[in-house]
């Protein structure tokens, strides 16, 4: 068949009244050819998912409705197709995989059955034939021991395996179009690399057209043939991957690409400040004990030794579940470590009871990952910022004055102090959280994935802010991330964690130049687009 598998022409999708703009998707046109991977990029809310869902006919009824244009799937207009026609096409001619492998699979149905369902709906095969086919497709997506996994429930699989099930389910009937909506965002770098490889491979083998949605330019660089850039519901630029990534035309595209941190750490002077934070053989074991419940024991951190000096940033990197947050929370004394020493300033806080932690509470502050949940939605941001100083006896007036200064410092208008968190964007909230931490005049600042939830462009700004306050107040910063690009930009030294153990520890430049530990190596290997030189345009 010649011609594009998917041809979207002048698609517009209206938003319900009271939204931030009139159309979620506004006059969008692009196409996907057989055997081609088209990446749609753009910041959060730009309409990527809505476009994808329009193709599948899965827009939430009564809320979003296509109002103009056509979506031609192999010459057939999806917007005009009846409900039953759409159902017949889904799974056979077009398939979709989603971002969250954890939630996209029905938790109470076995994996095999979920793949089988597609066959059951769309074919007349007997059970035995179907089962053979399911096992075959599971094998083709490299799932180990398909016969066993057939009867497994999704929760018994790892995230990567689940995403493979999703892919198997999408591809079992050889559709001509595969839509992947951020299929790897929730995965580890290493797993991400495998899945990307799998998608590319499957696509090549079967000649499927792929519409791949992402906001990660590394991923784009890794797999895209062509790129579509979206902003606020409109397509601002399309072109081949090479052209868009290396010679972006539209200012928005340029800005996005500029914000992608490079994997080459800048040169940094060696910090010689006073040793502010030191952990010795810090260990944390979750669970165990329990009278009525035999709790499972998890060694989340074992014998972690780290040191940070004033003015220095130590990064902890590692895959999900490696114990990064655990270390951070022990140091902030939100949880009590199982054993070991945590010296902050000249106080060992590891085992202190809450009452004696007051000095520590002032010195050591933390900024969390989720900007939407780290501010009390019911209190004005001003109240959140002055809370700490007031706890330590500062008068309300002085505290307020200080809060105004801090707002300016983090680049926000002091007048915004009596607004509520929901009136700010994610990046602004993260600034407020930093202001709240600074209000305590801390000497140690922990940032636990403080930028992971933010768009690339916003991420870059917050990273700059963090680095600036570190310099300005001579802070010892513990920076936790799973993103090597981010770590490269901000950390003086890096500790790599795996399964609760620090497997490698050293200067950022050295580690990035020559990783020693095999795990570290595999991490670097997996970083998408690592060999790609993004355009740097001012």
């Amino acid at each position, binding site marked *: 068949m010649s011609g594009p598998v998917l041809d979207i022409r002048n698609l517009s999708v209206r938003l319900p009244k009271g939204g931030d703009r009139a159309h979620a998707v506004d006059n969008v046109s692009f196409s996907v050819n057989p055997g081609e991977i088209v990446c749609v990029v753009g910041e959060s809310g730009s309409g990527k998912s809505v476009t994808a869902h329009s193709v599948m006919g899965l827009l939430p009824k009564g809320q979003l409705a296509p109002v103009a244009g056509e979506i031609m799937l192999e010459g057939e207009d999806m917007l005009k197709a009846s409900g039953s026609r759409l159902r017949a096409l889904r799974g056979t001619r077009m398939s979709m995989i989603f971002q969250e492998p954890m939630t996209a699979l029905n938790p109470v149905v076995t994996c095999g059955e979920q793949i089988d369902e597609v066959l059951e709906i769309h074919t007349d095969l007997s059970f035995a034939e179907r089962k053979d086919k399911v096992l075959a497709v599971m094998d083709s997506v490299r799932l180990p021991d398909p016969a066993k996994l057939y009867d497994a429930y999704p929760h018994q699989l790892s995230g990567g395996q689940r995403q493979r099930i999703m892919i198997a389910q999408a591809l079992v009937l050889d559709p001509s179009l595969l839509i992947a909506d951020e299929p790897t965002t929730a995965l580890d770098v290493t797993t991400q690399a495998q899945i990307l490889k799998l998608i590319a491979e499957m696509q090549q083998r079967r000649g499927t057209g792929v519409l791949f949605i992402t906001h990660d330019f590394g991923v784009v660089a890794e797999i895209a043939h062509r790129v579509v850039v979206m902003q606020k519901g409109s397509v601002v630029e399309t072109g081949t991957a090479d052209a868009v990534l290396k010679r972006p035309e539209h200012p928005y595209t340029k800005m996005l690409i500029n914000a992608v941190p490079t994997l080459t750490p800048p040169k940094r002077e060696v910090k010689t400040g006073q040793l502010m934070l030191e952990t010795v053989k810090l260990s944390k074991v979750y669970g165990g004990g329990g009278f009525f419940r035999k709790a499972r024991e998890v060694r989340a951190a074992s014998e972690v030794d780290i040191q940070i000096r004033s003015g220095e940033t130590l990064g902890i990197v590692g895959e999900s579940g490696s114990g990064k947050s655990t270390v951070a929370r022990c140091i902030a004394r939100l949880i009590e470590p199982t054993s070991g020493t945590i010296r902050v300033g000249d106080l060992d806080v590891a085992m202190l009871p809450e009452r004696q*932690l007051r000095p520590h509470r002032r010195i050591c*502050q933390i900024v969390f990952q989720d900007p939407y949940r780290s501010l009390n939605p019911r209190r004005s941001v001003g109240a959140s910022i002055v809370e700490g100083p007031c*706890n330590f006896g500062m008068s309300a007036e002085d505290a307020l004055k200080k809060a105004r200064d801090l707002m300016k410092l983090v*680049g926000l208008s002091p007048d915004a102090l009596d607004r509520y968190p929901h*009136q700010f964007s994610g*990046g602004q909230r993260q600034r407020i959280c930093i202001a709240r931490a600074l209000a305590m005049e801390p000497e140690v600042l922990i940032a636990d994935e403080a930028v992971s939830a933010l768009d690339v462009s916003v991420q870059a700004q917050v990273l700059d802010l963090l680095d600036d306050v570190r310099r*300005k107040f001579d802070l010892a910063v513990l920076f936790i991330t799973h993103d090597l690009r981010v770590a490269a930009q901000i950390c003086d030294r890096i500790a790599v964690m795996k399964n609760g153990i620090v497997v490698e520890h050293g200067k950022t430049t050295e580690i990035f130049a020559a990783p020693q530990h095999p795990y570290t190596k595999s991490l670097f290997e997996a970083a998408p687009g690592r060999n790609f030189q993004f355009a740097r345009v001012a």
Partner: protein
Amino acid sequence: MTAPAASTPLTTAAVDIPAPSKPTVWRKLKRNPSVIVGAAIVLVMIFIGLIAPLIATNDPSAINPAARNRLPMAESSYRLDDGTRKTMLHYMGTDTLGRDVYSRVIYGAQVSIFIGVTVAFFSVVIGLIIGMLAGYFRWLDGIIMRIMDGLMAIPAILLAIALVSLSRAGVLTVIVAIMVPEIPRVVRLVRSVVLSVREEPYVEAAITVGTPTLPLLIRHILPNTIAPLLVQGTFICASAILVEAILSFLGIGIPPEIPTWGNIMAEGRQVFRLFPHNILYPGIFLALTVLAVNMLGDGLRDTLDPKMEKRG
């Protein structure tokens, strides 16, 4: 350590654009028909209760054996102590003692709503305190929850029956009796909210800035319980009015000379088929009120429960 006195921004950030402000809770409530209708009916009922002395046509407990079991809109006359006769119209007829059902129903609003509101208020307040303690202090949790499980395992009506038979029937006894089994439910609710909220990053943030336990509970945790408690409170209120009626039906509720919708109905049930007005009118008031309170609760939940909100 230098104080962060600098007033120049370190990095340029997007200047504050006031995000389109979310519709306030109040405005959302006003848009919800079930809240509006529910609240309106409840307010009318409360109003009726308040002005009962003005709109009732007779003392609700004044008996007149000569004019018993009159149908609605019947007239009766009776002799006063000074020998004069007085005629009155019974909008809703009379009961087996010749008491004016209309006046009883009107006054019944006072007592029934009072019971509902009091039970709701106190079970919520007591449950809130216990639930916060159990949720926040892990060591207290085990003990408190075992006791609550025990209370909860006793079916509410049985406990009420047993408690009412404890001392003589009266409004207070009934209130306590209905309240006790409700408390564990509130405790569970509050505890679950506390348990989930205390894991919220903003609570941890408050801990790291050194907020002591009590202000932490009040400032950061308590407000999260208000919405679910408001909802739970309305349901408790509705069920209290109902349970009171059921206790009256079983003959162990509030003494009959204090009119409540429940015991007007309970007394009238013997003559239900001949004189249905004894059940009909208080029944309508009762069902309407409970319905309204339930609607209010549902509406509140739809607007206040963030889980519901997500669904759009």
